[in-house]
């Protein structure tokens, strides 16, 4: 509705406080849209990967890589189109999310391209060069991003599809069971001619939609109509039933698919959203109990998971065949990077071996070649993206938007933690991909959609409320915080 409104104080209005706080008094001036901030940031987000590419080319062959200009132009075009669409369809959206996603995606592409230059991990048996396909997947991801922004005028429309989301999420989670096992986990769906997809990556978004819709309706019932049991308030069975059912089903599926990372993600999002919706601390205890029992069950069911725990406890010990394990190789990569790193293109993260170097272990390349400094910068980018998502949740005016935003940001944060913590041996390794950075089509597409949803919510949140009908009451309207 107000998307046609031109932002008033856009140029030069960059400094100053964020206008969106808890209470917004709608005055004569509309808040700045910050679209020009976004554009300026996007310039950096495109330049940094292009310079990184030049850096790699110079380090490897002493010349600028031939594809650099085309690549830079392509990335700039993608970013430009995305920016224009945001300007048109979500003018008040958060200005940092798109640049951060673009930068991470661009860096990821450059890193994959850099690893493609290592012949030992780019053999035909391992699938050859990955960067071209990843570029296509990224483009598809951005298209989905644009589609969400253009077609989804208001995130509250999703509320109508609460139960459909539940069904879709379950189908997505079940589908890999009908396909083969890859690397000890059954998380892939192979579509002939297209490639393999990881439905779990999409399920995490869909399930957030379901939880948000369901909890928005049931939150009062869950929070208030409860029975006291052992000092804790337990909700009535009929309120809790569907949510427990979904949780138990997804847990079972994950046990059979042995996707530890994704189950962690689902438990996490389940606990977080329940807690936010009901505002009851007892839910954290309850949720954690469920999660821990689930995790213990998975660990005892499956030797694959037990093996991962051993690797985590002794990351440097040699493997069963006397060789150096992937975990140890990743640790050596991080350690060898040291404070400042070896420089792009000059590390040996290829020693990790296999395609995992480009997907699960991509952070090891960041750590080795860009050093502690570069790795912390990348982690901070993720932190910033998460922070912008949570900020959106705080600022959103409707409970569904709040819940959805906190769910999406939470799931993103957990994924970053689980992956980065796994490859640095902070926690046991679970096979998941680093959002945007790692090689993998499903991940990059799903995460672009996730960012699009967050942008849509933030646009609604930051958009000035409709002008009060001019009339008898001259007083300013107070927007009530929800």
């Amino acid at each position, binding site marked *: 509705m107000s998307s046609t409104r031109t932002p008033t104080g856009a140029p030069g209005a960059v400094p100053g406080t964020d206008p969106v706080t*808890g209470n917004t008094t709608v005055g004569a001036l509309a808040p700045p849209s910050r679209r020009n901030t976004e554009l300026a940031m996007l310039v950096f987000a495109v330049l940094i990967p292009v310079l990184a590419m030049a850096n790699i080319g110079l380090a490897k062959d002493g010349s600028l890589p031939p594809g650099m200009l085309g690549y830079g132009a392509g990335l700039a075009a993608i970013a430009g189109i995305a920016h224009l669409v945001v300007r048109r369809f979500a003018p008040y959206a958060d200005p940092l999310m798109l640049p951060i996603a673009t930068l991470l995606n661009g860096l990821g592409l450059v890193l994959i391209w850099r690893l493609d230059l290592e*012949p*030992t991990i780019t053999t035909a048996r391992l699938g050859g060069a990955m960067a071209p396909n990843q570029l296509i997947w990224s483009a598809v991801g951005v298209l989905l991003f644009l589609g969400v922004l253009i077609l989804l005028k208001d995130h509250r429309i999703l509320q109508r599809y609460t139960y459909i989301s539940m069904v879709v999420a379950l189908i997505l989670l079940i589908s890999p069971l009908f396909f083969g096992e890859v690397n000890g986990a059954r998380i892939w769906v192979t579509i002939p001619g297209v490639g393999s997809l990881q439905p779990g990556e999409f399920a995490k978004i869909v399930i957030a939609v379901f939880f948000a819709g369901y909890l928005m309706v049931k939150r009062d019932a869950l929070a208030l109509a409860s029975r006291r049991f052992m000092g804790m308030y337990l909700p009535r069975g009929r309120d809790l039933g569907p949510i427990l059912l979904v949780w138990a089903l997804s847990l079972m599926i994950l046990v059979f698919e042995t996707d530890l990372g994704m189950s962690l993600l689902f438990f996490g999002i389940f606990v*977080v959203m329940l*807690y*936010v*919706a009901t*505002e009851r601390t007892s839910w954290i205890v309850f949720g954690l109990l469920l999660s821990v029992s689930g995790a213990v069950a998975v660990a005892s069911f499956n030797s694959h998971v037990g093996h991962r725990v051993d690797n985590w406890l002794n990351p*440097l010990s*040699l493997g069963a065949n006397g060789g*150096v394990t992937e975990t*140890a190789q990743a*640790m*050596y990569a*991080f*350690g*060898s*990077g*040291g*404070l400042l790193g070896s420089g792009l293109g000059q590390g*040996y993260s290829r*020693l990790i071996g296999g395609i995992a170097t480009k997907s699960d272990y991509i952070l090891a390349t960041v*750590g080795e070649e860009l*050093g*502690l400094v570069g*790795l*912390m910068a990348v*982690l*901070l980018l*993720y*932190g910033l993206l*998460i*922070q912008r998502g*949570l900020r959106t*949740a*705080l600022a959103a005016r409707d*409970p569904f938007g*709040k*819940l959805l935003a*906190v769910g999406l*940001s*939470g799931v993103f*944060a*957990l994924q*970053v*933690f689980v992956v*980065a*913590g796994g490859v*640095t*041996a*902070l926690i046991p390794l679970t096979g998941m991909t680093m959002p945007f950075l790692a090689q993998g089509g499903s991940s990059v597409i799903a995460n672009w959609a996730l960012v699009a949803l967050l942008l849509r919510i933030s646009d609604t949140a930051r958009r000035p409320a409709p002008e009060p009908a001019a009339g008898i009451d001259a007083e300013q309207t107070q927007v009530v*915080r*929800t």
Partner: protein
Amino acid sequence: MNKPMRRVAIFCGLLMLALLLRVNWVQFVQATELQTDPNNRRVAIERYAHPRGDIIVEGTAITGSEETDGTDFRYKRTYTDGEMWAPVTGFASQVFGTTQLESIYDSILTGDDDRLFFSRTIDMLTGKDKQGGSVVTTLNEAAQRAAWEGLEGKKGAVAAIDPTTGAILALVSAPSYDPSTFAGGSSADGEAWAGLQQENNEDAPMLNRALRETYPPGSTFKVLTAAAALENGLLNDVDESTDYPEPYVLPDTAGVELGNQIVGRCEDASIRIALMDSCNTVFAGLSADIGNEGMIEAAESFGFNEEVFVPVRAAASVYPEDNRPQNAMAGIGQASNRATPLQMAMVTAAIANDGKLMEPYMVDRLVAPNLNVVEQHRPSEMSRPLSPENAQALQSAMESVVEEGTGQNARIDGVRVGGKTGTAQHGEDNENLPYAWFISYAVPEDGGTPVAVAVVVEDGSAERDRISGGGLAAPIAKAVMEAVVSGG
């Protein structure tokens, strides 16, 4: 809903903080440990990323580096006359690690040593490729070659020392191996390595016999017994007659008799005569009279019972505590005492150097890429096993051995040569072929480089009767001595 959301935000912040702390721990606190972990292949990759510094003999490099097209390692070690020099250099293999000089001075050769910090920094600033320093050895190429050729087709070892400084002039072990054959990372390198291992090759070509193998010293040990007798005052001179019958009955035994090779000349013989005719009876008697304690003391003053580092580790030669009959037998080198060729060369060197044993060494100096000397060895005295008078007396006796005794094959015109043969029996009831020994020294009259040499030949191919110190080992010792004194 905002209050729990703020808490969720704090929780997410804590997760990020945990990640940041973790990467700081791994990449800063643990970094050095991970960088230098032996399982971290980057260590080997870096080692072979630049041409390695060289090991130098008489101004010429006996090692080299060649560029390869392997995936990980850019340069591969090469060796000139690898088989001949292997007991000196050891090896530096991309896959199988490093040993001996290649290992001990690895940081100098790669250029990573702290003492090369300055030249490394200059290289970095001027954009030059990183260079390694070099290790300058004391070896004498002619002597080494003479020893190597002398042992051709045989099993054995030679150690030669400059008695006045302790500088090692030759160090040969045969059969040997060419470290070039497994310096790379190809499957051919792996096969070459496997073929050299003891389980696949009974000749044990990778055993450094000169430093690491101990042999029964046989009759060559008699010079040590003689030195002990003189030092202990049992005899005042090498020409003083002794009081030992032939055959000699070993102490504490029910008449176990010990005879001599040459019968009829050893009864009550003086040290000079006993050395010339290699009299078992005299030296067994002397050893018995000196006693086990005195013999251990004498042996230890020559360096027995202790590992020697030259700087490559040499195995400890042993003279153990034992009962009286065994101690008497040890006096002729036929009991539980064992010695490395290097040890016997040290014994000879101490006698030749008028009783002063110099610490053996084979690295003269370490040189930085810019030719600055990083470390210079200064000859140092290790011990004084015998007085100058006794040493000179023993020299004259050993020279008699070469002039008119069993060691005549080692005679060199115009050079003062002293020596002692040995034929050490070994195996249960002497069933294995004996080891042929020869120890000798040469002092050129014109003041050139003196040399002390020990040769052992453990030859399975020769006929039993023909194995004798004088026949097999002495000509090799002579060739080595000639190479040193003529090259001066």
